[in-house]
């Protein structure tokens, strides 16, 4: 994919980015942002100590795991919605 035409004349914050065809990829940074803040609030104090007590999950690992969980859950929800709208509803209408 040639990005040069997209980047030419692009002004950050003044122009929106042109990702209309790949908008679903933006779920990943959204999930990452939510996980960063949520784990910062919910993890015990041990997770932020240096060095960490043995057996304590670190902050970075917890964030990555939660990000993966969110992305997987949203993908499964999308699949479920697809099945209901494209398969089950037409079958009911027949």
């Amino acid at each position, binding site marked *: 994919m040639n990005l040069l035409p997209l980047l030419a004349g692009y002004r950050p914050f003044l122009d*929106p980015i042109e990702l209309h065809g790949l908008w679903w990829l933006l779920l990943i940074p959204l999930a990452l*942002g939510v996980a960063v803040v949520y784990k910062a609030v919910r993890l015990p*104090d041990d997770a932020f100590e240096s060095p960490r007590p043995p057996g304590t999950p670190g902050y970075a690992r917890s964030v990555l795991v939660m990000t993966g969980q969110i992305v997987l859950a949203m993908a499964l929800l999308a699949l479920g919605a697809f099945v209901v709208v494209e398969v089950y509803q037409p079958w009911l209408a027949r």
Partner: protein
Amino acid sequence: MSALPHDRPVGTDPAAGLYKRGREPFQPLAAVLAFVFPGAGHFFLGHRRRACCIAAGVLGLTASGLLIGGLDCIDRKDDPIWFYGQALVGPVTLGVDALHQRVFKAYDPGVILARTVDDVLVRQVRRSPRPDEVRTNKTLDLRDAEGRPVQLTVPVFELAAPGQKPTLSQSLGRMNELGTLFTAVAGMMNLICIVDAAWLHPRRRRAPA
């Protein structure tokens, strides 16, 4: 790690090294600081690493939303309901909206037909630019409520020259939706942080080795 000032070990179990939760004190100053700047409440309470992570997450979501959809995503006049969520990030979002309203929005070209100051400031509304418009300043000869002549310089949109980009590109479709969503989610996550800072309690600690 030494005990923080707010730690209240009520009914401590020395064998397990656990603190039982007592009555969490309400800390309004920490809540206010958490609203003023993401993470400042936790920083004030001594949780510096948590504060840095909160700031990185909330501000990262806000900046990402503005990069995706542009400054157009934060608009208290055109999208008031979304703005209520975005405003929870604090003065950062309020400042971005003020910038958007004051610096990038302008009046319709038809404002040059106005006769009185009220025709401009009361009956006209600033709007975002169209793809072929640029912002410029025009000085209008008007009359005030008493009929006295007044000169008023106002921002007005005019057609852009060939090849000239608009002052601010209005985002549409998915990019506008996602930019608005990112910034609103940042506000809601900051609300969680504000509540957490207001009633912060010591997290469970493991028994020392």
